[in-house]
C-alpha cells in the first residue's frame, strides 16, 4: 500500500468519523433520557434533562475546545482545498490570494470565520435542540483532566497538520505524498482526541 492509498483510506476514515460523531452524540443523549425516565418512572422532557444534566467544564477548556473545532475545519480546508490534487477547485486558482503575501493567513482566517459563524448560528437554536450546539457538546459528558488535556492537545496537532499542508502548498505543483499523509495523520489523530468522549460514552458507559 503506497502513500496515495493510505491517504485515500485515511480520508474515508476521516469522513466516517465526521459523519458519525453527530448521530452518536444524539444517541448518547437519547439513551440517558430514556434511562432516567425508566428510573424515575415518569416522562422527562428534553429541556428538563438538558437543564439538570449539563456539567460545567470551565471557560478555558471550552474556549480551547471551540478553537479545536474551528482549527479542525481549517486543517481540513488546508489539506483538501489548498492544492487541486484531491478536488478540482483550490486556493491555487484564486490569483488574488495566491499572489498576496498574506494569502495563506487570509485563506485560513476566512475558513475559520465561516465555521465560527456556523457554530454560532447553531448556538442560537432553541433549548430543545441543545444537542446540536457544538459549543455545549462536551458539557453533556464527564471529562477527566486527562481527557480534557487530550482534547486541548488536538489544537497543536491540528497546527502541525496545517503546517504540513502549508508545506504541500508551497511546493505546488510539485507534490509530497509523505507530507500529505503526515498532515492527514495529524488531522486524524486530532479528531480522534476530540471525539473520544462521545464514542467512549456510546461504547462503554453503563447507566
Amino acid at each position, binding site marked *: 500500500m503506497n502513500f496515495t492509498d493510505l491517504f485515500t483510506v485515511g480520508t474515508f476514515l476521516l469522513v466516517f468519523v465526521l459523519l458519525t460523531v453527530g448521530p452518536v452524540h444524539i444517541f448518547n443523549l437519547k439513551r440517558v433520557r430514556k434511562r432516567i425516565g425508566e428510573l424515575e418512572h415518569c416522562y422527562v422532557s428534553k429541556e428538563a434533562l438538558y*437543564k439538570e444534566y*449539563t*456539567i*460545567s*467544564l*470551565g*471557560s*478555558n*477548556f*471550552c*474556549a*480551547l475546545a*471551540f*478553537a479545536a473545532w*474551528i*482549527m479542525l475545519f*481549517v486543517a481540513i480546508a488546508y489539506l483538501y482545498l489548498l492544492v487541486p490534487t484531491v478536488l478540482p477547485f483550490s486556493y*491555487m486558482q484564486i*490569483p488574488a490570494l*495566491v*499572489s498576496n*503575501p*498574506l*494569502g*495563506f*493567513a487570509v485563506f*485560513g*482566517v476566512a475558513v*475559520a470565520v465561516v465555521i*465560527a459563524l456556523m457554530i*454560532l448560528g447553531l*448556538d442560537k437554536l432553541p433549548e430543545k435542540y441543545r444537542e446540536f450546539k457544538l*459549543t*455545549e457538546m462536551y*458539557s453533556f459528558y464527564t471529562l477527566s483532566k486527562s481527557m480534557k488535556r487530550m482534547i486541548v492537545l488536538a*489544537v497543536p496537532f491540528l*497546527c502541525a497538520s*496545517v*503546517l504540513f499542508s*502549508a*508545506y504541500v*502548498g*508551497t*511546493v*505546488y*505543483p*510539485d507534490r509530497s505524498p509523505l507530507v500529505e499523509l503526515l498532515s492527514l495523520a495529524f488531522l486524524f489523530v486530532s479528531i480522534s482526541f476530540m471525539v473520544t468522549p462521545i464514542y467512549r460514552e456510546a461504547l462503554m458507559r453503563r447507566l
Partner: protein
Amino acid sequence: MRGFVAILLILIYLSVIIAQGDVDIPVTSGGARVSDSGGGSRSPDIDNFIRQVESWKTNYPDRFDYLKKLLYKEPFNTETYKIPAVLIYYLGNTTVNRTDELKINAYVINNNPIEIRRTLYLTFEEQDPGSESFKQVNPSPQIIQTNEYREKLNDTTWTLPDLTSFQGLKSVGQVRLRIKVTDGHYDWYSSNTTTSVPHFYGDLVLNVKNNPPTLKNISLTGPNPARYNDPLEYVARANGTKGDIVNVTLHVLDEKGNERTNVSQEVKVGDQVNFKASQYGFFGESDAGKNFTYYYTYGDGINITNTSIFDGPHLRTSPKLWVENPKMVPEDENYYWWQKYNFGVDIANQDPGEYNVTVTLYVDTASHPWLEVETKTVKISKTPQTVFFDAHPFDVTDTNQSFTYKFKFSEIDQHGNDFIEASGAKINSKVVPYAIYNPIMVFNLAMMLILIVSGSLLIERKLKRGIEAQENASGKSKNKKVQIAGRSGNGIASKISSWFRRS
C-alpha cells in the same frame, strides 16, 4: 423549235389573263388561292409564286425593277384625309425631381380609313431649361404603321424608352417636351393639338427640381499625430437622391491655408469616398512636423457645395531609429513569476542630433496578451544606448506559460517598423513564492493560529458556555462576574489575561 413554241404559248396565256382583269390573291388560313374572273379555277401554291418572284428578282433584276415600277401605286391623297392627332400622355405630377422615374407616352388617333392611312414617324423633342431650341430625344423616329391602330377606337400609344428621368440634366427648371410627326407629306407637332383631357398634353411642360447631395461622416482615419507615411485615409459618405452620381473633390491645404493638392472621385449616393494619402502621395518626408487641413467640394453636376475646413493630419517629426538586440535576463534562472526580469534593447538615432523617443515594453502570455509593462522616454543620439526595463511583468496566472516580449517605439526604425519583438522563455510552474520556513509563511501561519485561538477565547468569554450550563441556573455566575470585575484592572494586559481567567 419546240422551245420557241412553248414560250410563245406561255406568252399568249399571260396576255389573255392580263387582258381579262386583275389578279386577286385572297389569303386564307389554309394557304393562297388564285382565281381568274373568267370562270374555271387553278390553285397554285402561294409559296411557289413567292419563289417564282424571288427567282425573278435574282435572275432578272432589270425586269424585276421594271415590274416594281409597273406595280408602284402613287400615295393616295384625297381632300378627305384627316391629319392624325398626336398627343403626349403622361400620368405623373408635372413637378418632378431630377432623378424621378418617368414614363412618357405618345398617343395617336388616326380616324382615316385604313386604305388612306399613312405611316407616321414620331420624334420626341425636349427643350431644356434656358435653352432656345429643342433637341431630339429618341435617336431614330418611331414608326407607326397603318395597321397598328386599335379597331374602332383607331388609336395607339407608344412609350418613349429613351427618357426615363432627367438625371443627366445640367440645370434644373422647366423642361418642355413635344412630338414631331411626319407622314411623308405633312410635318406637324403635338403642340398643334390642344386638349383639356387630363394627362394628355400637346406640349408637356415639366418643372424639374434637384435635391443636392450632402457629404456626411467626414473623417480622417489614421494615427494622430501621424508620420508622413502612415496609412492616412480621408473618408466621407455621399448622401442624396438615390441613383445620383456625386463628384467629390478633396482639397488638401498646407499650413498657410494654400491648396496643396486636390483629387476627385465619383461615387454613387450612399457610397463612401476614400482618399488614401499614400495612394495619391499627398505627403512626403519633407512634410514631417507640419500641420495640414482639408475640405471637400462636391456636387451632382448641378449644385456644387463646399464643406468647412477640417484639421489634419498633424505630421510629426520622424527621426530614423536604429534598433537592435532585444534581450531579457531574469533575476533568477528558474523564471519564477514573482521575480524581476530585466529587459533591454539597443537604440540609436541614424541622423545627427538628439530626439526624445518613447519606448514601451509589452509582454505576451496566454493569460495576459500583450500586457503593457512600462513606458520610458529616452533621448537618443548617434551613439547607441541600451534602454533597460527592470520589471515584474508576470503574475501567478502566467505560471507554466511561455512568453514573448516586444519594445514599441514612438518612431519607426530602420526596417520601417515601430516595434521589435523577441521570444522569452517558459515561466516556472511554481505558484507560491515562499518556502515554508520563509518569515512571511511563518507570519501567515502564526497570525492565523493566534487569531483563531484568541477569537475562540473571546467568543467563549461572550457565550460563557464553560459555566453557564450548570451555574447559570443557580445564580452563581452573577456573583462571580462581580468578583472578577473587582479583580480586573483596566489595562490591555489585564483584559488579555482576563480572557484566560476562569469565569
